[in-house]
């Protein structure tokens, strides 16, 4: 019986070719920034060594359907310095008189009267105590406010042109090309987080610094907070502070829970009076 000699040499060669090809292609996949969603991660990034502040995002494929983020504000640590407001204004060059984030000062007296003020959104910090209150203060605290990133956002429901939407990774964002500036969303937002830009006449809102998050950086306000009152992190990362807080037994509240907006912004040490 005649054995048919298989073309072994050719087989080996093609095998090696295929394996090598696959390996090289695979390693290139890892070396080059994966811009599966069309993002060049180095674009617009400050040079120099940047730490990976949110693990698992930098130079990785960003699976937009499998992301979960949370923002926690610890009222008991906020000292009302206004760093966050300054950083926010600088990061987005927010026009004067409009605020993507701001810090309110609450004062409660012994008759449970509540006095709230917020001079210039807290941009200059709180340099002076309030002298227009005749009574003794029982409890005074600062409350930083920003977009609540509702899971059931009223603002996206009212937009007539589909210019604001909730992205698959849970951010309520704006489409600056589609917005017609009708301001329905500004009226719909129960947290007053939106404003109409006086020059472009389109709505702007806090995005939790989406552009920074997608590059693995923390939001600007979290970055500059000196006391750690603002915390941000991915819930896919079990080592992150927010994951541990959310899993832990501490009391977390949201603003205007009864409105059923299901915010992803949680408050620690929040008082009942804060709305």
């Amino acid at each position, binding site marked *: 019986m005649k054995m048919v000699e298989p073309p072994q040499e050719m087989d080996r060669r093609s095998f090696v070719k295929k394996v090598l090809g696959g390996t090289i292609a695979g390693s290139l996949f890892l070396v080059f920034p994966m811009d599966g*969603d*069309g*993002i060049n991660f180095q*674009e*617009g*990034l*400050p*040079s*120099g*060594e*940047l*730490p990976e502040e949110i693990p698992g995002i930098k130079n990785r494929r960003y699976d*937009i359907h499998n992301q979960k983020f949370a923002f926690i504000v610890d009222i*008991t*640590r*906020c*000292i*009302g*310095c*206004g*760093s966050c407001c*300054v*950083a926010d204004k*600088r*990061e*987005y060059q927010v026009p004067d008189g409009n605020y993507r984030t701001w810090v309110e*000062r609450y*004062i409660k007296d012994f008759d449970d009267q509540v006095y709230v003020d917020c001079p210039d959104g807290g941009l*200059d*910090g*709180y*340099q*002076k105590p309030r002298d227009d209150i005749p009574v003794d*203060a029982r409890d*005074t605290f*600062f409350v930083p406010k920003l977009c609540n990133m509702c899971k059931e956002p009223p603002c996206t429901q009212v937009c007539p042109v*589909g210019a*604001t*939407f*909730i*992205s*698959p990774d849970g951010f309520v*964002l*704006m*489409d*600056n*090309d*589609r917005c017609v500036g009708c301001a329905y969303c500004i009226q719909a937002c129960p947290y007053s987080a939106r404003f109409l830009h006086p020059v472009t006449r389109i709505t702007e809102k806090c995005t939790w610094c*989406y*552009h*920074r998050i*997608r*590059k693995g*950086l923390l939001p*600007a306000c979290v*970055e*500059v907070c*000196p*006391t*750690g009152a603002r915390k941000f992190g991915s819930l896919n990362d079990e080592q992150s502070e927010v994951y541990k807080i959310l899993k832990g037994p501490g009391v977390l509240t949201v603003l205007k829970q009864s409105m059923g907006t299901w915010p992803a912004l949680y408050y620690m040490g929040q008082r009942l009076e804060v709305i």
Partner: protein
Amino acid sequence: MSKHALHLIVVMVSIVAMAGAGLALKARFIPESFGLYGAYRADAIDEEARRAVRHGTNASCFGCHPYEATIHLEGDHTTISCEFCHGTYSDHITDKKKTGTLPVKKGQEITTLCLRCHNTEIKARSTIVIKTVGMPDHLAKQNVKVTHTCNQCHHVHAPLKYINEAKKITGLMEAES
């Protein structure tokens, strides 16, 4: 051929023409990425993600300022962002080149900046988080002129640096005498 055939053809042709016009207009006016994730333009997400980052991190400043980094990281002000007091990274560096000088705070500006956080009079400040002082009581208590600015005793990057050094020196002097 029936005498109504022409009517039928006219109706059919107009339906086709209108459907074609409708499809053409739809293709023209609906953005390319509309409906990928929902009833919105999915490209808007990428556009937002591509926005230029203006704030760096403290690490991006320390790369070129190692002296300041050493002092800043040793002291009690490690959690303070460089950019809060000095200005944003992007106003200073563009494409790895220095394009602007960030202002340095001087004199009374420094005291104002310090008191944004360290003012006892603002009762809402948590004492667990931060040490606060009342002005000008603090200056009087330390036996210095009321015109003194904070940075005349406190290093702004490491507030207790000089204080602790002075304490060490005076401690030594006391031990020797």
